[in-house]
């Protein structure tokens, strides 16, 4: 299996703040065995706290570490200033992950590798194949589609497919900032309050069950989506890479477990057991198996 699945790190979820992001990308990642790294902010324009100089430094650091670096775009943009400047932001990276379809207009003449991001709503192989005209190097599967649909896209579209294998799942994006609302502020006057919640805010049901996390404009699952037990199946279905969303503290350890399972130095079951402590609200993988997202089905 080792030659079939590469490991990508998705964008940092939540608002970690500029200092922590720079530490993470410039220092810590040197010891994390990811093949590709996605840098940027998929959620909120006000959270774009890395300067173009920071992005340049991160891209160059990733290059020195032998990792491919991609700039990853916003998803929900309603203002021109949220859309402008993409070519400058991705200048020093190997490529760009597009999460809002209009960004493709700005990339017609680019020499950057284009990755079709998970927020583009490509639910079938024909839609994916339509995107071949933009010469994408990869497509990241929408989070909610099951393996048989993902495999169909991988099989028929001719585009290598990446699948999310670890992290809290983004389940909704809104015009409203839920974090600001939680502290009685508007989105326009949020004061970047999400910076004070670098792991989001836990939403429990009225029966005290952990259901979601709110984080700025998005609602995430409280549970951690995990496909550690399904890595052999992913390789068998011609999936080219898996995506792990980083965490504030344990990214290196989590990637290491996935790496060992891919290399068959650990069984998938043992890998799953080792990851339990990094998923404080439990694990889920229902969407991958065509079930409600919160369910977990052991392989």
């Amino acid at each position, binding site marked *: 299996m080792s030659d079939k699945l590469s490991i990508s790190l998705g964008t940092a979820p939540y608002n970690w703040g500029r200092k922590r992001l720079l530490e993470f990308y410039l220092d810590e990642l040197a010891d994390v065995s990811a093949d590709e790294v996605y840098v940027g902010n998929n959620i909120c324009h006000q959270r774009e706290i890395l300067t173009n100089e920071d992005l340049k430094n991160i891209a160059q650091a990733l290059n020195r570490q032998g990792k491919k670096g991609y700039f990853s775009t916003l998803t929900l943009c*309603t203002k*021109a200033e949220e859309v402008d400047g993409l070519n400058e932001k991705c200048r020093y990276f190997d490529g760009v992950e597009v999460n809002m379809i*209009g960004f*493709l207009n700005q990339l017609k003449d680019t020499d950057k590798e284009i990755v079709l991001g998970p927020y583009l*709503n490509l639910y079938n192989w*024909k839609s994916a194949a*339509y995107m071949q005209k933009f010469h994408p190097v990869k497509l990241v599967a929408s989070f909610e589609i099951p393996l048989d649909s993902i495999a169909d896209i991988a099989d028929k579209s001719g585009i290598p497919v990446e699948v999310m294998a670890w992290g809290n799942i983004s389940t909704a994006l809104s*015009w409203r900032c839920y974090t600001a609302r*939680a502290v009685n502020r508007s989105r326009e006057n949020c004061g970047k309050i999400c910076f004070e919640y670098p792991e989001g805010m836990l939403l429990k*049901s009225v029966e005290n069950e952990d259901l979601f996390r709110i984080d700025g404009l998005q609602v995430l699952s409280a549970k951690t989506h995990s496909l550690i037990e399904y890595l052999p199946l992913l390789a068998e279905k011609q999936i080219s890479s898996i995506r792990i969303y980083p965490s504030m503290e344990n990214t290196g350890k989590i990637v290491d477990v996935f790496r060992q399972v891919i290399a068959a130095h650990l069984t998938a079951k043992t890998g799953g057991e080792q990851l339990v402590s990094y998923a404080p609200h439990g694990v889920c993988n229902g969407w991958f198996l065509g079930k409600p997202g919160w369910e977990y089905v052991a392989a």
Partner: protein
Amino acid sequence: MTKKAKKFMLHVPAGNLECLKAAADSGADVVYWGFNSPSNLRNFPGINFSCEEAFSGVDYLQRKGIKSLITINSYPQKDQLALCFEAIDQAHAIGADGVVLSDLALLEYCKNNHPQLEIYLSVQAGACNTEAINFYVNEFAVDWVILPRVVTVDEIARISKSTDVPLEAFAFGSLCINCEGKCQLSSYITGESTNTIGTCSTHKFLSFHQADKIYARINGKAINCFAPDEIKQDAHFAGGLPQEELHQWGNHFLINRRQLCKARYLLHDGKSYRLNNYVYLNTLELLPQLWQAGIRALKIEGRQRNAGYVGEVTKVFAAAVRAFRDHPDNYTVPDSWMDACRRQFPEIVPSTTCYLGK
């Protein structure tokens, strides 16, 4: 239809032929509906059209000079792709004027195979900025763009200045708080996705448990609970109900609040509507600003609603559109219009927050 139009077009939903006729007879310029299949995103039991009913609907509308649109706005997977292609073929075959689409494969199919069908970009495509709109215009020559309810009037004005495609906005009905096409809350809890199956927290997943409080659950996950006196306090009109009727009313109350974005959750400050209060959209008082911003069609939401709703709301908005066309500088909203709208959502209050600020 161009941006030089003299008045708003009024786009009205129909869940069945009775609704279609109510829309047509009450002042709609366009009636939109779906086939009874997962090809559209109001795939609820008991609504939508067979091919024969759709043909009959188109015929009825054509005789009145009203446009017919078929909504085929799901994101099909695998085998559903062929079903959606077939739905576009059927829309053409029955003589519909246009289709409402969001999936790239369906847009491509329609453009290549049925260029005479007008393409309305569905709200589900989530095109809420000029670059996204231009993408769909350049790639598929879409004729109209239906804006998601995530853009303010000011943002609409900026978008409108930089595109020639006419823009449609939601004017009345249920209000999604999350961006259309980007909400998988129902999918996460029930396994049925708004994007693919076309349903959101459907009744079949709803259950109640009555102990000291009334609990409502979706697929086993508690979305709300009320003590009887709390229902009385929370509801705007339940104050006068006798105790014995409160539980019955409470069940009705909770059925209408079953969406996960309108659930109550526990956060640090206790139980509250953390994502959205239960409100409905009513833009009657906002028509001048929407026109000024460049909106040229008003969309009434509610293909799942009955003919009474369709007829009543269409009459009110048709009157408002006429009044604004005839006297744009003296446009006012009489109480009778607001009251008629309020009767469609008696438990809750109207809102235009999504268009005014964030």
